């Protein structure tokens, strides 16, 4: 903790600390996010990787204050955006920042656009909301610019979402998110619904735009390939907590957490197709019934007694890389060697 604070805070455009979110349904309380910390530096792209149900989308929504309530409740934590804790702000303030300072690209482009409105109106809407002095025509003009920016001819702006293909819809969603040049862009699996070739186009475009506008970006995904492609740092999330965080190199070449390791081992090796996959055994824990100790413990090949009992603390391996795992202590952390047996 202390080491984090020594870093120059001024660079951080978004800081999430100890975020806890619960979904309280009639039969159970789903602990979707459990003390999650994220830091996004200016102009950088942070990859957030994790399995289904790890709480990635929930975190993104929390930043925009859009967690559906009921059943969702933020029980703890701080989300500091532009020096302000958004969790303490009222609806009016939140509306002011949404789309302007922080915007989000949602998981499914097929359902993220309003089917009864032409796409340019949907883009113009966000522009006008944050530039009240603009006339509707000017806003539409600006929306046309945005469309061209994402590679859609401006004269197709009057068409409706159903007339667009999946890739084009995703571009429109991106255009909406970028229309007011937000400081922070949260991209929630922006390409999972798309074909590889289209995915490549969209990712390439996002990289371009990021460079052009210096937007800071959180890239939520479960595809380590995408992370390698466009991110600067990575947070690996498991059961609503960051279990390992570091730069690309830290994570890809100096993997520490057994879960991260498992993720890599699950991927087929492109170089050697005969190599057998080494999957992580078992399943994600039930978020309404989390284990007491380390959440990954039941699936971990290296689990020790203590893992089941006590939550591991955070351990920094270098200035940028930390892990939460009982396999490491102050002694072995820098060498990266695992404490086996014992």
């Amino acid at each position, binding site marked *: 903790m202390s080491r984090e604070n020594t870093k120059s805070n001024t660079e951080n455009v978004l800081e999430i600390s100890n975020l806890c979110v619960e979904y309280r349904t009639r039969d159970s309380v789903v602990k979707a996010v459990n003390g999650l910390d994220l830091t996004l530096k200016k102009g950088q792209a942070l990859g957030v990787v994790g399995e289904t149900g790890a709480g990635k989308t929930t975190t993104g929504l929390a930043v925009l204050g859009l967690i559906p309530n009921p059943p969702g409740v933020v029980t703890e934590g701080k989300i500091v955006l532009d020096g302000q804790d958004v969790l303490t702000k009222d609806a009016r303030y939140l509306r002011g920042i949404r789309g302007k300072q922080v915007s989000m690209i949602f998981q499914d482009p097929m359902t993220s656009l309003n089917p009864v409105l032409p796409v340019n109106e949907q883009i113009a809407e966000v522009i006008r909301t944050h530039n009240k002095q603009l006339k509707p025509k000017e806003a539409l003009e600006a929306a046309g610019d945005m469309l061209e920016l994402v590679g859609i001819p401006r004269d197709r702006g009057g068409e409706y979402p159903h007339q667009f293909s999946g890739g084009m819809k995703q571009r429109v969603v991106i255009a909406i998110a970028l229309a007011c040049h937000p400081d922070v862009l949260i991209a929630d699996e922006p390409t999972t619904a798309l074909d590889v*070739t*289209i995915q490549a186009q969209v990712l390439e475009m996002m990289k371009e735009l990021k460079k052009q506008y210096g937007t800071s970006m959180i890239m939520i995904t*479960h595809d380590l390939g995408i992370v390698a*492609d466009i991110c600067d740092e990575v947070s690996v999330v498991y059961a609503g907590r960051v279990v390992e965080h570091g730069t690309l190199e830290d994570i890809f070449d100096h993997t520490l957490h057994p879960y991260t390791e498992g993720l890599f081992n699950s*991927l087929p090796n492109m170089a050697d*197709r005969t190599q057998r996959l080494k999957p992580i055994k078992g399943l994600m824990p039930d978020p309404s019934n989390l284990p007491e100790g380390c959440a990954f413990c039941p699936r971990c090949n290296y689990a020790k007694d203590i893992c089941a009992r006590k939550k591991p603390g955070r351990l920094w391996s270098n200035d940028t890389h930390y892990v939460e795992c009982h396999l490491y202590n102050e002694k072995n952390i820098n060498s990266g060697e695992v404490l086996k047996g014992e």
Partner: protein
Amino acid sequence: MSKPLLEVQNLVKYFPTKKGKLHAVDDVSFTIDRGRTLGVVGESGCGKSTTGRVILRLIEPTSGSIIFDGTDVRGLSADGLRKMRTRMQIIFQDPFSSLNPRMTVSQAIEEPIRLHGIITDKREREHRVLELMETVGLAPRLYNTYPHELDGGRRQRIGIARALAVNPEFIVCDEPVSALDVSIQAQILNLMEDLQEQLGLTYMFITHDLSVVHHFSDDIAVMYLGRLLEKAPSDQLFQNPAHPYTEALLSAIPIPSLHNRRQRILMKGEITSPVNPPKACRFANRCPKATDRCFNEEPELREIGPGHMTACFLYE
């Protein structure tokens, strides 16, 4: 391996639609040898699933021939087809919609055994179901549970057990892992590999995930808008892709590693409509290497190396 297990010749499937004929599968030919895996890749809507379904005659083909182990599948009577389906099976992409929500795990696995009268004794059948569950890694306590109580991975295991229940020789796997998380995906892939080894199965493995198909298949067929563009042994395809589309496709896969990254070849545009496509190379409008000829003629699939076929004018 003298004779291939499955031989598909000039398979065509057109769907009549309001706007015209939809060319879902257009003149596709390939063979699969016993005990081997043919991977089929391609973008969404290129006709992968349709090909798989037509082979099992879940959809009637428009034309072409399907020879399975010497039997013409198209010539089978309804009853013959039912028998044939103890030898050929299919696993579906979506583990959610491919299981009847009102049947328990055991009922679902038992159904094919019962329907084909493979085991008539009730006790024995129950035993067999439990055995199959064990084979695919489902705990016996799940015997009486319903699919909606289970996660995607387990459900996919039910689908596999169901397919295995009739002791098939050949299984069409229609994107069996694309709905699953990587960690679960790896579990299922390993399971399928083990089964192939133990039971000597032959697979047709449909996917759009190139890294998976590379890992899993002996041969790979690349489809585009109903057409087979390239077919080659797995390593051959990855090392020396012939068709510009295959090349672009390979370059588009994001590689989860910081080293030996590929230079991306970006294709312009998106897949065109498969309804009444013009007589031209279907990839021509997105192809960086297209010539005038590509827009006026359709290239034939031709052999360019041992087991390596492609349909492109660049290789004439």
